[in-house]
């Protein structure tokens, strides 16, 4: 299928902060400032950038946890076979639609209710959306536990989160997410809290599930090495804007934007003989160039499907 699953255009999320109780001045933080991208059906997009660049805000706006303040997000509607803006959804339609978007969070220690056993945790979304009868639901929990590799399921269902290791808990999070058979899953650094050896098994599990269940991921991370492993395409964010977006291997081998180059050059390489080339940029200067070009920066296509924000090309290259 060549359709896009999601089309995001000029997405904005502004936060108002007041200057104090008696102040009439309202300041606006532009956490996400006019970003646009598409995710084709069944493919995964990595969103990389430093802390505070707006990655998580973007994820929360896309998964409808926080309302956006501007721009448009459209999803492919399986029934009408056309793109549908999320602004048009209301009531039952919205609730039904929410099943298609799920989220996996960073910290498996904090995102699972410590007082519920694993069965209840995974059952909850089915209960909320009133899917099937009780025995159907329990059967579904049993199956999904097998899918995420927590076998035999009957051993895990009565256990509580504190009885599981970090890797097992993240598997429970994934099970809870996938039991709704979503088409789109937002993953916010799902492996950054895990040990290296366990990290790969979780990443492999997610890749296999994406293939089997036709799920698309928006994968948020600050580690490009992880993004390379997980994603077909990567978008680089800086100060609320996407500065470069391309196919993963193209982005890594041919980065254009100075910020992308800086980001790639900061990743440690697991080879003591490898001499990493340093690439320094002046962040204050970059900051100024980007903020003076506020509004919708044009993205220029420099190669097939490789886009770079133009104001920066003019300013810094």
């Amino acid at each position, binding site marked *: 299928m060549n359709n896009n699953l999601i089309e995001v255009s000029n997405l904005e999320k502004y936060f108002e902060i007041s200057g104090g109780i008696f102040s009439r001045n309202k300041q606006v933080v532009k956490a996400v400032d006019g970003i646009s991208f598409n995710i084709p059906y069944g493919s995964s997009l990595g969103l990389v950038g430093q802390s505070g660049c707006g990655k998580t805000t973007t994820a929360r706006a896309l998964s409808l946890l926080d309302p956006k303040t501007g721009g448009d997000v459209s999803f492919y509607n399986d029934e009408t076979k056309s793109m549908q803006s999320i602004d048009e959804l209301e009531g039952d339609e919205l609730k039904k639609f929410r099943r298609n978007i799920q989220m996996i969070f960073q910290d498996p220690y904090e995102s699972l209710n410590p007082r519920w056993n694993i069965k209840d945790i995974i059952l909850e979304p089915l209960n909320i959306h009133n899917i099937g009868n009780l025995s159907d639901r329990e059967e579904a929990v049993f199956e999904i536990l097998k899918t995420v590799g927590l076998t035999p399921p009957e051993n895990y269902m009565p256990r509580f989160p504190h009885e599981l290791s970090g890797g097992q808990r993240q598997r429970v999070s994934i099970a809870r997410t996938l039991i709704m058979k979503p088409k789109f899953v937002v993953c916010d650094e799902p492996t950054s809290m895990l040990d*290296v*050896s*366990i990290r*790969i098994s979780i990443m492999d599990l997610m890749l296999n599930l994406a293939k089997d269940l036709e799920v698309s991921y928006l994968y948020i991370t600050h580690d490009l*090495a992880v993004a*390379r492993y997980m994603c077909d395409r990567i978008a680089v964010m800086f100060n609320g804007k996407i500065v470069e977006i391309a196919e993963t291997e193209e982005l890594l081998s041919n980065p254009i934007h100075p910020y992308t180059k800086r980001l790639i050059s900061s990743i*440690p390489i*697991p*080879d*003591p003989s490898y001499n990493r080339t340093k690439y320094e940029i002046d962040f204050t200067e970059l900051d100024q160039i980007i903020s003076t070009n506020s509004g919708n920066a044009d993205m220029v296509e420099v190669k097939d499907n490789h886009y770079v924000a133009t104001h920066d090309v003019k300013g810094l290259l």
Partner: protein
Amino acid sequence: MNILEVKNLNMSYETLEGSVAAVKDVTFSLKEGESFGIVGESGCGKTSVAMSLLQLQADNGKITSGEIIFDGKDIVKLNEKELRDVRWSGISIVFQGAMNSWNPVVKIGEQIREAIREHYPDKTKEENTDKINELFNIVGLDSSIADRYPHELSGGMKQRAVIALALSCDPKLIIADEPTTALDVVIQDQILNEIRKVQDILGLSLIYISHDIAVIAEMTDNMAVMYAGRIVEKGPTKEVFENPRHSYTQSLLASTPSVVGDKIKLKSLDGEPPSLINEQIGCSFAPRCPNKNTSCNPNHNMELVEVASDHYVDICNAERSK
């Protein structure tokens, strides 16, 4: 000359469930100006080793045997007063998440001053101010930061200030225990550069502890891989990366993604490290080992054996007799 020699260090924690052997028979040494890396997953004993070097282990942690010779003295035998002289002016440490350990209501400069006063009570206020300015200069901070409170600084700045604090009493050895874990990649890169620079300028020895084998590759001359409380492989960093001999080291390398080179299929390592509560003989990695064979026997004794120049691997007596 060796500045630090750790010989057959054993340490255990008394818990309600029993005694947990966190550090088993750990032996390594460090030359002046050398950087030594310790890598391994959570709970393998990395931090316990670091804490024993400063005798800062939790109250239920006890060194059961072994020696830690620093600068000619056995730290294990020192009393609390003698230890205070070693801590910070001999060995200092940058803790994991240390940037969150600043006192929120005291200015950064004042907190560093406090450490210097404790160790050098005779120095004047002006001397201390000069010292702090010099330290800030080394770690790339503006001297005005001294008058700021911790909440006014970013994570990266706080971590730089922690490094300045660790340097404040002119230590010979710095232990960096995952100093960049909570920071993102660009800040991590800057902090790593700072640590390297500081080490160069001051000729310090460094013990760098991390779960990230890529950082160890870049930061260290020699390294040790720890698993379940034991050093399972140690040697020159280049040699260990080029010829990893222990299956655990091989698994760690095979599970680390990289942004350079061809994209390879990474291999996961199933299972979990063993519980350290019950005493174990034999190879603790065997239950997860991808190269396990019929000659693996849980009753075999393990020993670090030199397989190449300075390159040691933990192997069982069956392997040795081959």
